[in-house]
């Protein structure tokens, strides 16, 4: 296809899209005024299941199956990254160089670390009560751990990050979601139906299975992000290409494993 034809194909497509998009825009309900029929029903459903945060109710109750799909996307994306960023046969590992961090920065990072972790856990735990939830809190929790990389260097982070545990945690989070879904089937309802008692509105025990699924997503996301960043950090800090040979090799090729076998337990 010549560039002229491509341009015409693009112009025809763009014109068609513009016409349809403009037509659709005129049919939209007025901005932010009329209560949307879906919104009204979602709020009603959330309150009837004692879930104060309607978004959590939509994510983990009304559309729990969609969320299972989203969780699986993250899960498989992390697995894909682990496979892609493994240590290749002709690459070798070297110990990361220690860094001396400016003392105020180190103190700040070390003091923020437990606090950030607490905030992350708070956001996960209150997913069904206030804005937030498993995904948001999980990412904050995983970020908290990486403050140790900021406070010092990759060695320090490796010491407090038993990667195998996080790999198990990721799988366990995904599994817990599916198992909760099948528990509803065993209880005689459809897959992922909210079968647990709903509890009191706006408390930690409210929301029935929404609360359980939220916690499962929290575990999956925390572990998933830690594993993901571990692969990126390994590649950027430890693993060297065949051409590079500054520093002392820790491990020279052979096996082509992903490096787990030689990592000492923390």
């Amino acid at each position, binding site marked *: 296809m010549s560039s002229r034809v491509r341009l015409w194909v693009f112009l025809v497509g763009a014109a068609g899209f513009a016409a349809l998009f403009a037509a659709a825009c005129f049919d939209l309900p007025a901005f932010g005024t009329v209560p949307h029929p879906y919104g009204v029903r979602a709020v009603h459903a959330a309150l009837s299941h004692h879930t104060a945060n309607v978004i959590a109710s939509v994510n983990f109750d009304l559309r729990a199956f969609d969320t299972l799909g989203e969780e699986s996307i993250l899960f498989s994306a992390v697995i894909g990254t682990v496979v892609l960023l493994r240590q290749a046969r002709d690459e070798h590992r070297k110990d990361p160089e220690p860094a001396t961090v400016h003392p*105020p920065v180190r103190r700040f990072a070390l003091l923020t670390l437990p606090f950030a972790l607490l905030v992350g856990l708070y956001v996960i735990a209150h997913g069904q009560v206030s804005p*937030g939830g498993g995904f948001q809190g999980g990412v904050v929790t995983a970020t908290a751990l990486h403050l140790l990389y900021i406070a010092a260097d990759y060695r320090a982070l490796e010491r407090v990050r038993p990667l195998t545990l996080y790999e198990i945690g990721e799988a366990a989070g995904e599994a817990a979601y599916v198992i909760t879904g099948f528990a509803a089937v065993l209880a005689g309802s459809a897959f992922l139906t909210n079968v647990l008692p709903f509890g009191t509105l706006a408390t930690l025990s409210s929301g029935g299975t929404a609360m359980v699924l939220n916690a499962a997503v929290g575990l999956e996301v925390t572990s998933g992000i830690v594993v993901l960043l571990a692969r990126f950090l390994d590649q950027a800090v430890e693993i060297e290409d065949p051409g590079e040979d500054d520093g002392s090799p820790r491990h020279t090729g052979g096996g082509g494993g992903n490096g787990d076998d030689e990592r000492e337990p923390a």
Partner: protein
Amino acid sequence: MSTSDGWLAAALVPLLALVPVLWRIAYGSPKDRLIGQNLTSLLAGLVLLLAARGFHRTSYNDVALVVSVLGPTGTLIYARFLDVLPDSRLVRWTALAGVPATVLPLCVATGPGRAMVKLLLIGALLIAGSVVTSGRGGKGGVTA
């Protein structure tokens, strides 16, 4: 103009201050950009606190809480990779003047209680984060 409109109008001040910051982030020197990044999270935290009050949603304060924790973290990540942690009086003074000017009226409006302590905690975090990341840290926070 109602009181909630007043809070939202106040939120407009730090929001509009983000316009020149964007310019510096996009076209400034590496140092300028890092200062801009630092300033962005600080101003965003203030906007969020004021907006939460303006919308009468105390739970929106959680968003500001997350900014106050993750904002400085982001700045320190950039500092580590760009190898600069610029000394910035602008950030320091924005934090030392802007945060109390925002948080104290909010505390008065909230009244004593745990919600007020939470506001003070977020304010303290915003100040601490900004002061540490704008101090005379030398190179990248890493004195190798």
